[in-house]
């Protein structure tokens, strides 16, 4: 059976043809931090990292993740940057319903890892794939800046 490396731990799972990574994480492994929002890569609620890069796990074939490092919201706090971003989100009262925010945090961590001091334009570019129906975008921006400034 195929093996996936998730948050530093090996998981052996059967992978039906074409199954997106999101449903392997959620329905097979019960890692529920990555959320289903649209199923077609439009909302970013399902964002996880593959080898440090943000991907939309609802359209990312799980088979493509074999042999790569998968990081989810459950594991992102193992990195200093992940912790700082999670803390900033809490301190800035970013959350409302919070459903999309795990995906937002994953996108923000990837941005800050690649660019420790992003401009507003950089943030727009990196974060505009992540939808939030509660509309907390300004607080997300503020939280990202606060991490960059700290």
């Amino acid at each position, binding site marked *: 059976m195929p093996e996936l490396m998730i948050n530093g731990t090996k998981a052996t799972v059967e992978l039906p043809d074409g199954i997106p990574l999101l449903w392997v994480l959620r329905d097979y492994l019960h890692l529920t931090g990555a959320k289903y929002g649209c199923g077609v890569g439009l909302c970013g609620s399902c964002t996880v990292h593959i080898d440090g890069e943000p991907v939309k796990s609802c359209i990312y074939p799980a088979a493509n993740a074999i042999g790569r490092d998968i990081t989810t919201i459950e594991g992102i706090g193992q990195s200093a940057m992940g912790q700082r971003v999670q803390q900033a989100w809490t301190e800035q009262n970013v959350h409302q319903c919070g*459903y999309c925010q795990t995906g937002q945090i994953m996108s923000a961590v990837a941005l800050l890892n690649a660019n420790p001091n992003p401009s507003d334009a950089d943030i727009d570019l990196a974060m505009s794939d992540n939808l939030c129906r509660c509309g907390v975008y300004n*607080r997300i921006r503020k939280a990202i800046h606060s991490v960059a400034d700290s």
Partner: protein
Amino acid sequence: MSQVSPVSRRSFLKLSALAGGGLLAAWRIPVLAAENEIAAADDAIQPNAFVRIAADNRITIITTAAEIGQGTLTAIPMLVAEELDADWDWVSWELANPTREYNNPKTFTQLTAGSSTISSLYQQQRQAGAAVKAVLVKAAARKWGVAASSLETELSRVIDRRNNRSATYGELAAEAASISVPRSPTLKRRSEFTIIGRSKVRLDGADKSNGRAQYGFDLYLPGMLTAVVKRAPKFGARLIRFNAAEVKSSPGVVDVVEIPSGIAVVGNDFWSVRQARLRLRPEWDLSAAEQVSTEEQLTHYENLMEKRGTVRRNQGLVALAQARADQTLESTYRFPYLAHVPMEPLNVVMDYDGRNCEIWCGTQWPDADRSAAANVLGLPIRRVTLHPLLSGGGFGRRGTMDQDFVREAAHLAKIIKQPIKLVWTREDDIKGGYYRPSAVVRLTGSLNRRGEVTALLGRIASQSVAIGPLMEAFIALIGEDARTAQGIQEVPYDIPNLRAEVHYENYDVPVTWMRSVANSFNIYALETFMDELAEAAGQDPYDFRRSMLGSNPRCRRVLERVAAAAGWSSPPPAGLYRGMALLNSYNSYIAQVVEASLDGDQLRVHRVVSAVDCGIVINPDLVQAQIESGVVFGLSSAMGEIRFHNGDVMQSNYHDYPILRMHQTPTIETHLIDSDEHPGGVGELGVPCVAPALANAIYQATGERIKSLPMMNHNLQLK
């Protein structure tokens, strides 16, 4: 929990000792005491409580007010903790299962809607906190043999300064359980508040940052199956037959069954049932199906504008005032259907074994859902337990009048009889109904020679979210405002002659309340029309509005504050255009100024400034967060539409039903007015004004008044 409750069942607050030395304080609504006697047996296994104090001094505030993002799980604990003098660092929340004792004291149900949570619980939750504190003080007094009046409380401790000793609430909890509870505890004055009025960090923030927060979608039970439903392509279509055997043999599929709403594909996991559903080839009888097309419907609504509708408000003599007017203006506005699209699509987990049923879901109306499931399953209510979970947004969709998504799950559970999670895909959500209704609004306004508005006639044609005026009145009793003429039948302005009429039209398109309900279109019409009237009167939009707010000082104050904050008296920077709008609803007041620019068809909203008076503010940062959220929601609503063509919904996902993204979001500034008034609502307050204020700004730029939404149909793209 051990049942040690020496106080009368009829008492106002019921105290129970907890195993390990804690205290559980449960509220009883005196008016329902008799009924509760009957309910008590059913509910005995459920800790019906508002406050739980553990021996280690951790305090848990339990509530059924749904957390749909608005912050109730922080604001309600703040109300209790304030009067309890609790140590906020050790306060946490818990969502309670719906039982009668948790009914809202004003509405007698548990519907979270109408921006009414804080307003209706402000007094009750504080009383609960104060009563529990009084009991803890008495317990300490008894223990130390001193007068209760000589003791003080602070940070979850009772302090005896004279004798230099103190005890934590947790230490006193066991003893407190046997003490009688005061009927009307003394509440603090506002000047004594140390928690209310402070920007506390959300109590649910940390779990929402690390992925631990559990939404309905996240629940997995042992042996649980997953289902998706293929619903009719048009509302009202009937299923004739489908290829059950073929789909049932798909990998991972356990069963394919017909339920009233369509065909349920049941299997081991989402991916299996979603793939199998693609193979369904149902035949539908469309003879009774809804065939509406948006264009035709709105044209029909517009024709109705010539006829008198059901009168919802009639003050003065509008016809006479019109006859005497110096000028009379008339404008007609068209509004599309809209979808709530909460980020978490609808889902329900149900475990029905033929005898008892347990339900888990994010919902705005847990007690109604519980009853609906009992009704479908033919069970007495006591055999149905509902566990509310966090909701990934609601905006009204998780609180429909007929509990559609819970009923549907119950129909399936009745057949399957094992734990099952019914989930909606995003496409199901957008095509599956329960929309903000479409509407046409016509406003006729009369001005006298001095430029004063002497009469306003509003006519609205729409589907009622509550099946007509009688139900609208009934729904007001449960705390929601379902009135189709909301916002027009009670304008904030001093207009002596005012009439509001409604044409209720029936379509087989399910509609429901969506954040700010009819204000979402009526305020657009009213506030853009106010600018039109101001221009006809030769006045500045601000001066014009202000001159008509003599009898509404709180409205005038927010208008003045926003004008000052936005610099209304000086012209905007080159290339920027301003517009304003005003609203008094939910016992709160808001005025907004929008700054926008236009570059060809590229519309950019730069800044939205709001002044808000919502009475006493519980948590300023969370109020600001709600206004920010409302602004983004209102802008999304101005840009998108759900369009029908021969009964088919033309949209399906976020690509053709777009909501605002980060790069389109303006700077949002919110100024709160200091007030001693009873708290009003803020969850919906930020929504209605932003689109008309934007339209008024666009008029300044282009000279075109946008009288139909969405704005994208006017060749405007949000940059």
